[in-house]
């Protein structure tokens, strides 16, 4: 009798506690995500849905006039992914290993290195805009001061340097994150392996290359996948510093910016193309989903088991 009362209580509680959470997720995440797909198969006039369009929107996305900016934006996303992955991963491992080696002051350095991660990209963006200002910024001031005048560029204002500069700013803000992930990866390595290698006379470099680095593979998987997702959905920083059109002259345009312009209208044309925007949204999600899915599968298969 008491048992069935408990069962009834639990059942009621299960519904009562699960339903609000499930409904919220269904209404505000699942449904809209699924609807994006259907949007891409319809003609749109402003925010009014028209007739069924088949794959017309996808065809138009890959045709004039969208094709050129699509491929340019995609190229930028790929470059940003490669750049951030290479630099951020190596710096992250270097910092993590330095933290791991030096117990004294570890807490202080950890706190400082992670500090920029908590900043909004809006704040980070404007801060660096001021730092890199050609007339008032400290960076060019210092470069002039030490006589490297030719290096005092209009970092954010010229097409050649704008994208690498954005990558650097992104790096400044985010490198603490992989560093902490790698640090916890290093801390998770069983000390017995390291002791055994030391007794066998292995040098510090050998221990790092042959034992620690391979055992960092799980952290590497996480960092790579997160970087991939972040790079292909890159929006905030380019928007804050280059506006929705990726100025200068589209040099900082990304897929997410293009998606935003198509969906909500660009500053210059005003009109939006929801169907094509949705098609691009589906494309981005497919790239991110497939890339992250297969990427993590592949990387995981290369992880060594302890």
């Amino acid at each position, binding site marked *: 009798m008491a048992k069935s009362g408990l069962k009834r*209580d639990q059942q009621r*509680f*299960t519904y009562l*506690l*699960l339903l609000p*959470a*499930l409904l*919220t*997720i269904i*209404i*505000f*995440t699942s*449904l*809209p*995500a699924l*609807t*994006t797909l259907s949007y891409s198969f319809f003609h749109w006039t402003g925010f009014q849905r028209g007739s069924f369009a088949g794959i017309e929107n996808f065809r138009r996305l890959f045709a004039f006039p969208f094709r050129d900016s699509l491929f340019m934006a995609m190229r930028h996303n790929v470059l940003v992914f490669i750049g951030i992955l290479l630099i951020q991963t190596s710096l992250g491992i*270097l*910092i993590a290993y*330095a*933290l791991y*080696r*030096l117990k004294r002051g570890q807490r202080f*350095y*950890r*706190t*400082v*290195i*992670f*500090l*920029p*991660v*908590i*900043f*909004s990209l*809006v*704040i980070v963006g*404007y*801060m660096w805009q*001021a730092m890199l200002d050609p007339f*008032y910024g*400290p960076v060019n*001031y210092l470069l002039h001061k030490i006589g490297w005048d030719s290096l005092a560029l209009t970092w954010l204002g010229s097409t050649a340097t704008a994208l690498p500069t954005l990558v650097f700013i992104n790096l*400044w803000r985010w490198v603490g*994150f992989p560093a*902490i*992930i790698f640090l916890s990866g290093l801390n998770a390595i069983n000390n017995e392996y390291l002791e055994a290698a030391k007794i066998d006379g292995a040098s510090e470099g050998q221990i790092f290359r042959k034992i620690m680095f391979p055992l960092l593979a799980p952290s590497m998987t*996480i960092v790579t996948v997160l970087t991939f*997702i972040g790079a292909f959905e890159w*929006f905030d920083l380019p928007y*804050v510093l280059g506006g929705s059109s990726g100025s200068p002259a589209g040099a900082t345009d990304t897929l*997410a910016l293009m*998606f935003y312009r198509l*969906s*909500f209208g660009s500053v210059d044309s005003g009109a939006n193309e929801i169907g094509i*925007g949705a098609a691009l*949204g589906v494309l*981005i*999600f497919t790239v*991110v989903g497939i890339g992250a899915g297969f990427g993590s599968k592949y990387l995981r298969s290369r992880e060594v088991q302890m």
Partner: protein
Amino acid sequence: MIKLFASKIFFRSVLIFNTVIVILPLLFIVNSSLRETNDFARTPMKLATHPYWQNFKDVWAGGTFPTYLKNSLVVTGGSLILILLLSLGAGFVLGRYKFKGHSIILGFILSGMLVPAKLAILPLFIQLKWMHLLDSHIGLILVYTSGALPAAIFIMSGFFSALPADLDNAARIDGASEFQLLRIVLTPLVRPGLAIVAIYSAIPIWNDFFLPLVFLQSPEKKTIMQGLTAFFGEYSSQWGIIFAGLMIAALPLITLYLIISEQFIKGLTAGAVKG
């Protein structure tokens, strides 16, 4: 021996160099926020020996900043309360009860972690318009809650399932209802989980700029990060005011971070590091 010493010095200089790179830009902003605009424009590099507090007064007196800050507090606070309550409940049920469909529901919730909010923004926009929740803090709160819930529930159900099963039975024998069991016995024990969830969800919401950009149009409803972009357009060459504005926007989080940095680090990396 010399090699070991050398490498120790090398690693320490890596960390010191990193510290300098992180701190210098912040010092530049702090220093410049305390200087009068014309004074700054003449000599951008000088130290603010006579702090010019008027910048802060000007930013505050403009009227929009207090509103932006208040809006951000409302949106972040509202989302946080909903996220904590809903993930506490759902995490309890999923972490403690066995029932039919358990793994399907958990799987469904986890699939929500894969959906980027940016992808769903178009239908969300139209859906919110239809629900009369566009240009409203409530609409924004619901979208944030939905976005953060999957990870929050996952974290909380992990914390709940790690507690010993005897606790429940002992409480039930003592005559506690399921609600009392959750509220009095278990909730205090999963507080570390709630702290992680709070930081994991609150920081990205406070910092977010994309969703307000799309969903909020009325100037009096804008959040601080969204407001900053408007603010920068308005005061584009008034450096003192701009730097003071940046400081005011950045200070709340920095202060909190300096007090509980360990929890921040744990919370923000919670999605990526197991255990």
